Structure formats: structure tokens, C-alpha cells
């Protein structure tokens, strides 16, 4: 038996395909990553509608108002109860006026939970009207219906 005194070099597996796959993955994620902060809220599950379309062109002068299923209003990160919403909305309208933007041109985007009471949403809308806002948009998840 021949004693194998051949090379004892370290056999390295070829890493090239792995690097290729890793580059593919990076390219995939780079294309998908979205650094713009979409104003969403974990507590609000939006209702679904096939007609909901992302506004095109994107809305300028937007105020986001969220409502949870317990009728809690979330405005600018603050959780407030519906009865107090008017004060905050009025404040927000004042801030908008002070920055030389017309409140008439500002759209209030209402992101209400799908299980919230319609009456509470109506009350929220009427409080926004009272605070001076005139334009509204009701938000829903868009796309084909795919849930029960």
C-alpha cells in the first residue's frame, strides 16, 4: 500500500456560488427596502376594499388620524379619547395655519379599525369638521379580496 504522502493542503470548497447567491439576496432586499415612514399603527387593522387606491399624486398637507376599535383616537403619536379629540384637532389646525398652509387644502386621512363603531368614526369626522378641516379621506387596505 502506497503511503500517501501527497499534498496535505487544506481543501477549500468553492465559495463563489454562495457569494453569488448572497449578492442576489442583497439586490432583492435593496430593491424592496422602503425607508419612507408610512404612517401606520399597529393597533389599527384597516378594513379592506378593492377600490382603495393609493392617492396619485401623493397627497400634500396630510393629517393622519387613527382610531382603534375601542374608539381611542391617535393623533401625532398621542392617544386621546374621542371626547378630547376636538382640542387636539383644533390645535393641529392652528399649527397648520401658522405654517402658512390653508386648512382647506389639508386632507385628514382617517385610519379607523375595521371593528370600530361607525358612530364613533362619524363623531370623529364631525369633530374634525368642527375644528375646521374640510377634506377627508377614508383609508382601507387595497388589492384583491383575499380574506374571509
Amino acid at each position, binding site marked *: 500500500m502506497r503511503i500517501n504522502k501527497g499534498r496535505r493542503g487544506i481543501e477549500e470548497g468553492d*465559495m463563489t456560488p454562495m*457569494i453569488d447567491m*448572497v*449578492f442576489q*439576496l*442583497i439586490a432583492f*432586499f*435593496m430593491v*424592496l*427596502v*422602503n425607508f419612507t415612514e*408610512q404612517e*401606520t399603527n399597529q393597533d389599527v387593522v*384597516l*378594513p*379592506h*376594499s*378593492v*377600490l*382603495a*387606491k*393609493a*392617492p396619485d399624486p401623493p397627497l400634500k398637507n396630510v393629517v393622519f388620524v387613527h382610531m382603534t376599535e375601542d374608539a381611542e383616537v391617535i393623533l401625532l403619536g398621542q392617544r386621546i379619547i374621542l371626547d378630547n379629540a376636538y382640542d387636539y384637532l383644533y390645535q393641529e389646525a392652528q399649527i397648520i395655519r401658522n405654517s402658512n398652509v390653508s386648512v382647506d387644502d389639508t386632507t385628514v*386621512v382617517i*385610519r*379607523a*379599525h*375595521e*371593528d*370600530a*363603531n*361607525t*358612530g*364613533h*368614526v*362619524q*363623531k370623529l*369626522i*364631525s369633530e374634525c*369638521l368642527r375644528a375646521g378641516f*374640510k377634506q*377627508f*379621506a*377614508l*383609508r*382601507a*387596505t*387595497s*388589492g384583491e379580496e383575499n380574506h*374571509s
Partner: protein
Amino acid sequence: MKIRNTKEKHEKIEVPMTPMIDIVFQLLIFFIMTFKIVDVEGDFNIKMPEAARESNALTEEQIPPMRLIMKANTAGDLVSMRLAEQNFSIEGGYTSYEERTSAFSSLGNYIVRFMGNQIGPGGNTPETVEIEIDADFNLKYEYTIQAITMISGRLDNNKEVVPLVEKIQFAPPRPDPNAE
């Protein structure tokens, strides 16, 4: 001048790739961590006229808004719907997802027929028709949105939105039965 030894072998210079792989993995982990799957959100193309009208005077072009009455059970689920004189209710109220879906489809088809009638001057256009939604206080918001979906437009074969009724408003809310 030194005569170059042409037999000199050109050595292959190997660039160490290990640090590059390390950086690439770092990048990959960064992108994986910052990747977030978010549902696409959209808005309805509806105009919501001011709910509180001072007077009920109507201009000549306006016709009084049609009222969509939506009733809910104690759990907030839809039990019946009626638009003006057209009733979409069933005996005993809606009790299942299929019944509600079918009712919404009927509502949508009715609106399509209604808007398709009287094409021409004086006909029903998105500018002239107005619908007022009168929903029970505790009706779940998703049903209201579905009703608005059926009323405000329809997807045609090219997945484009065909507008039906754009002027949608809410009736003054009835008092909350659960309020103190």
C-alpha cells in the same frame, strides 16, 4: 538595463475575499432586519360634503340625497340594508358572511343600474347623485367601508375604477346607546 527574464512566471495575485464576504453578510443582515412587509393602503375617491348643512335648501341641479339605512345587531354585524325604496334585507336578517356579501353585491348592481339609467342631460351622473349613509351607531366600520366600496365605484375588466357615486355623506349620528 537588466534584461528581463522572459521565462519569469506571472504570478497570480490572489485578493483575499474573506473580508468582502463578511461585509456582504453584514449588509444582507441589515437589509433583512429592516425589511418590513406592509399592506398597501389606499383611499376612496369620494367627496364628503359637510355633514351639517345649515339649511336644507337645494339648488336646481341637486336632487335630495338617497338614504342608505344599515342596521346592526348587538355585536355590530350587519343585519339589514335599505337604499331609498329598495330593500336588500332578507327574512331574519343577515347571519352569515355569504349573505352579507350577496347583499352588498345586490347593492352594487342596483347602483350600477341606477347610474346607467337616463344617460344624458338630467341623467344620473356622479355629480348629481348623492347618497347619505345612515348606519347604526355600533355597526362595525368594515361594513360601512364595504357599502362605500359598492356605491362609489366598480372595477372594470381592466382593473380600472369606474366611478359611480362620488358624493357620499353620513347622516347625523344617532346617539350612542352605550353612552352614559
